[in-house]
């Protein structure tokens, strides 16, 4: 049974490239274009094994999304990785405080990304 990953990013190129890259690595991929859409998906019954989110997004940014996702039932221990161009330490600290599992700067190669996913997602 392949593990499911939810990809949240407002850039279509990011969503498509991550989806293709992760599917090649054997994962099932769900996508959302911002935090609001992602929260709706989680509430509608999508149960990802891991979430990869951008930080700077319209409607609901990544930081707010991490906080709201963590508050949902069953989402407390799901690994959440931020994949962003944002390198400000304050934002990292804020994301960490809200429950992010890791911080990756764009661009991250497919092999590095899969390596990190395998680190935080046992059995992947």
């Amino acid at each position, binding site marked *: 049974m392949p593990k499911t990953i939810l990809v949240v*990013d407002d*850039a*279509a*190129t*990011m969503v*498509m*490239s*991550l989806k*293709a*890259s992760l599917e*090649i*690595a054997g994962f099932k991929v769900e996508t959302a274009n911002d935090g609001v859409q992602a929260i709706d998906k989680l509430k509608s019954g999508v149960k990802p094994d891991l979430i990869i989110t951008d930080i*700077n997004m319209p409607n609901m940014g990544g930081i707010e999304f991490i906080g709201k996702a963590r508050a949902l039932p069953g989402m407390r221990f799901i690994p959440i990785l931020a994949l*962003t*161009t*944002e*390198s*400000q*330490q304050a934002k*990292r600290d804020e994301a*960490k405080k809200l429950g*992010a*599992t*890791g*911080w*990756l*700067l*764009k*661009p*991250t*190669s*497919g*092999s*590095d*990304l*899969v390596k*990190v996913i395998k*680190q*935080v997602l046992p059995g992947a």
Partner: protein
Amino acid sequence: MLERLSRWLASRRLPKLDRLREIAAALQPPAEATRSQHFRRLQFITAGAIGLGTLLLSGVVYLGYPWSQHLARMLSISDALALAVLVGALLLLTLALTTVLLFRASFGILNREQEGLSHQFDDAQRTLSASAHIDDALQDQLQLAVSDSESSTLTLITRVNDLNSSARKLLDYLQHSDTNASDMASDIREGVDEMNKIASFVQQLPDKIRQNNQAVESIFTEVKHLEGLAGSIKSISQQTNMLSINAAIEAARAGEAGRGFAVVAAEVRRLATRSSEAAHTIESGLDHALSAVQKSLNESDLANASHELEQANQVAEAFEKLQHSYEDMRQFYKTLFAVVTRHNTELAEQIADMLGLLQYQDVESQRLTRINNTLMQRQALYTAVTQISVDDNPEPDRLQQLTDALQQLLQEYLESEARHSHPDHASAETEVDTGPRIELF
């Protein structure tokens, strides 16, 4: 600040840079050289006025001295006082003249400077207006570049997906073929086993025929011996017949006494005849049987059948070769499958890495968007200044306000850039100032 702006603009490889530099230069304050030129002119006018006044004063004192004495006598005052009054009046006159000249010169300079400034202001407004239009055009181009790169990247991703899908299909096909080949191998192996059994039987067939022939030949010899026995029976029956004839002759000689003996002799003769017939029948049957066996032995001549047997053996050998060839082909196929699988896996990894590199598009797109936003704000600042009229008595520090606003805009832009990652295309593993590229909390 403007120098910093100019330096920053010079360091960016943006189109229309010369025009932007011109705008930055236009925002520079009036040159110091022009001001000192005006100051020197004023000094020259002042010195000239004082010199002229002094000369005039000296001449008037020299020429008016007699007149002052006359005045002193008329006013009953001393000559010295009269002279002092004269000098004082002349001094005041000179001072007034100098002041008037200075004022006129100053007003002239100020008017010219004002005109110059007004022209400069108009030029600056025109420059800013042109710059605002350039910014507008640049924004359009930047948006187009972002849109184009996004579209190209999406097409690329689709193509890469197709490529990966084709590679996956190839692998699935090979896997399916491998399964089919395994089933086929099992069928071929069973067929070859059956053929080997047949070949083995065919190989053993000459020996079996030979053994059968030997058995038949042995029977043939035994039966031939029976031919002699039939001859003996025949000979015995002939002798018995002769004996019965003699007995009948002797019975006839004996007359009545030999009548019974004649009956026995006749019976013996009949028995001899029947024995002879039986011996003849046996001999004839044996001859038929022996000729039939001989014919059978002749027909099962192994020398004649050797060619067919050899061919049968060759068929078995051919089947064995076929089996070996199939095993070789199967091994080659397995190797081919392993190689294709390995290359396909590497291809998939490279595709995944390439897809990761496409994240550069998003990084660059965000960078272009930040530049675009900065250009938009700068355009708004330029436009605001171009809408001011000199006749509206603009605030004297309006240009300074623009400079401050541009400085703030630049500061904000640089800070925003610093907050975002700037990947080094040569080595993506380098760390940025604010933290590692990959960090697990």
